């Protein structure tokens, strides 16, 4: 622990030194009234946890580099267990930050939400479990949800199946943890309410399943399949649907993109698959986003960004903009400013609603047989709306989706 602390301190010093250097080069960029805002990112980049991905850190670092002396940015590795997350949070609080961006997994945030709320420091949640909305069991004034709420996304997926795919006979597959249970519950409500729609099969699978023959064959007769799952089982399932001659649209959430990107899903399996991403920067037509993508690839060693990189970048920028607008980094003023402002980022246009949710769009993605992605539809979420029932329990789920923050 001591070692980690000193490494972090070193890192902070290094970043500060870098910031100073950049600041000197772009003297005056900070402007008169804008105070330096101290931002800490709580996320792992390497390690064995599925949440250890480079996107958050690369995105945030890119923004910090661009902002120069206006931000003092550092990152603390926050392992996946709630206890380790709490340690990371304590380390962050020791450094007296003005804002914290953190925790890829809702299990981390939910477990220590009280501590976050008590600190009063603006906290930008990388996960979007509905428990974390402002008036939810684990929410608070100072907790902002960067991403659209999971169950809202699940509801939109189900509506897409009914309205756009015009499916009447639906098969469901739910991974046997919070991602699957909450997603399927939200979707089932939509199907139950829709006229003439029938759920012909509902199955579960484990997160590590490598054979979903039974599940795939059970989908026979469905004209669309909705799936709330992890990337690995999606790869298995998509292929086994094709193997068993079930050639119908197959809708999943953020894990679908990871499954296809891994190379596990190609051909008809890829063509049938739909996923949902908060945004897909690499296929944006906007010049601003395209430039950003190439800047990002400059810091990532050529690895293309996904939505989470854009969101981490956007949050650092948004916080700096709020500090400039508020002319203060005092927590209450920052929070009030953020709650009232609109910020046009790379991933989305962010505007806090009464639930403290910042982003209100998501993209439905599709692929061709070669696995090339395109955005097929944009979902828009009405502010202040929460689909489904907020789970009462405040006990966090212990499993997390690989790579994309599940909730």
């Amino acid at each position, binding site marked *: 622990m001591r070692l980690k602390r000193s490494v972090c301190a070193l890192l902070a010093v290094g970043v500060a030194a870098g910031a100073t250097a950049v600041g000197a080069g772009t003297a005056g960029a900070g402007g008169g009234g804008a105070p330096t805002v101290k931002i800490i990112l709580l996320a792992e980049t*390497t*390690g*064995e*946890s*599925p*949440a*250890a*991905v*480079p996107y958050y850190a690369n995105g945030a670092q890119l923004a910090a580099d661009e902002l120069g002396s206006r931000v003092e940015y550092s990152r603390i590795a926050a392992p996946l267990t709630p206890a380790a997350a709490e340690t990371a949070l304590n380390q962050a609080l020791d450094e007296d930050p003005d804002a914290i961006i953190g925790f890829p997994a809702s299990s981390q945030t939910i477990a220590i939400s009280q501590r976050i709320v008590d600190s009063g420091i603006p906290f930008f949640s990388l996960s979007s479990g509905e428990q974390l909305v402002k008036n939810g069991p684990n929410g608070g004034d100072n907790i902002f949800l960067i991403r659209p709420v999971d169950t809202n996304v699940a509801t939109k997926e189900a509506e897409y199946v009914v309205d756009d795919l015009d499916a009447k006979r639906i098969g469901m597959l739910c991974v*046997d943890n919070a991602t699957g249970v909450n997603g399927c519950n939200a979707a089932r409500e939509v199907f139950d309410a829709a006229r003439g729609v029938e759920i012909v099969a509902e*199955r*579960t699978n*484990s*997160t*590590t*399943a*490598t*054979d979903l*023959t*039974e599940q795939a*064959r059970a989908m026979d007769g469905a004209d669309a399949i909705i799936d709330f799952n992890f*990337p*690995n*089982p999606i*790869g*298995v399932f998509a*292929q*086994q649907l*094709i*193997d*068993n*001659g079930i050639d119908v649209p197959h809708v999943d959430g953020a894990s679908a993109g*990871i*499954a296809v*990107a*891994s*190379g*596990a899903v*190609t*051909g008809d399996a890829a063509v049938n698959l739909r996923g949902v991403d908060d945004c897909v920067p690499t296929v944006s037509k906007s010049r601003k986003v395209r430039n950003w993508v190439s800047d990002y690839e400059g810091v990532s060693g050529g690895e293309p960004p996904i939505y989470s990189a854009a969101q981490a970048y956007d949050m650092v920028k948004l916080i700096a903009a709020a500090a400039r607008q508020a002319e203060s980094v005092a927590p209450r003023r920052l929070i009030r400013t953020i709650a009232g402002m609109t910020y046009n980022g790379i991933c989305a246009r962010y505007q806090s609603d009464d639930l403290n949710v910042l982003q209100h769009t998501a993209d439905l993605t599709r692929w061709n047989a070669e696995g090339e992605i395109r955005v097929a539809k944009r979902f828009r979420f009405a502010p202040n709306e929460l689909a489904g029932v907020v789970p009462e329990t405040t006990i966090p789920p212990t499993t997390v989706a*690989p*790579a994309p923050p599940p909730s």
Partner: protein
Amino acid sequence: MSTFVALTASGLAAGAIAALAAVGFLLTYKATGVVNFAQGDLITLGAYIAIWVTQKEGMFGLGALDLVPGYIVTVLIMFAIGMVLERLAYAPLRGRSIHVIVITTLGAALVLRAFIGLWQGTTPKFLDSPLRGEVVGIAGANISQQRVLIVVVTIVVVSATIALFAFTQFGRQLRATANDRDTAKLCGVPVNWLSMLAFGLSAALAGVAGILLAPLGSVDLTLGFNFMLLGFAAAVLGGFGSIGGVVVGGVAIGLVEHLFGGYVGRDFKAMYPFILMLLIIALRPQGLFTRGSVQRL
């Protein structure tokens, strides 16, 4: 009928991988008395090494190999890794209590997994197979050829291992070492070298399992863990006795999970192999296929 056939095929394929893991367990257990709980992460490592040698710039930038040569190189690398692991992690455990050994091998599993995470990242990857997307129709069921391959390769590999054990001097020496290490030494048997070879073989088997398993979906750090558990259950069923016994145990486990689990209480099917294992431990601690008793772990 076609469902029955499809589920049987699934059960056999899963059972085959479990059997490979179980034979891996048995090899090191017999040769060194170590129940190596890192077997699952060795399976994962095998898949990642195969990805490493067949994709992008290949290993150490030497260029990507074609699939089949890449698989072979992977198995050889795994063999070497197993030998090194024996020296680094397991040789110091010789003669220690079973508790120390269990904790240490679990520790080795975590170290391996962390290493893979640092090396390859945590974003899922994919290992291709020459049989990708191909199916065979059997009695109206479409069985992916990869699963058929799993069963065939397992039969070949396990038969070869059994033959190695039964009919070669290496096999006799290994069994002698397992039976009485000191006396094997008195007979001039190079027991340390044999332990290394046994670990090498065991890791190579894990590599084979990883290579076979990976193309079914995508590969992440959890790939092998589940099969380690299934393999352990299979080994328990076989009473940690003969190779034949643990292979039958593996197949039993695969069939119970997929065939039984395909019809009854589907949501709990992942539990069935372990319920079976617990039943066996309770009713026949020496395993299904061993006579006499074994030390309880």
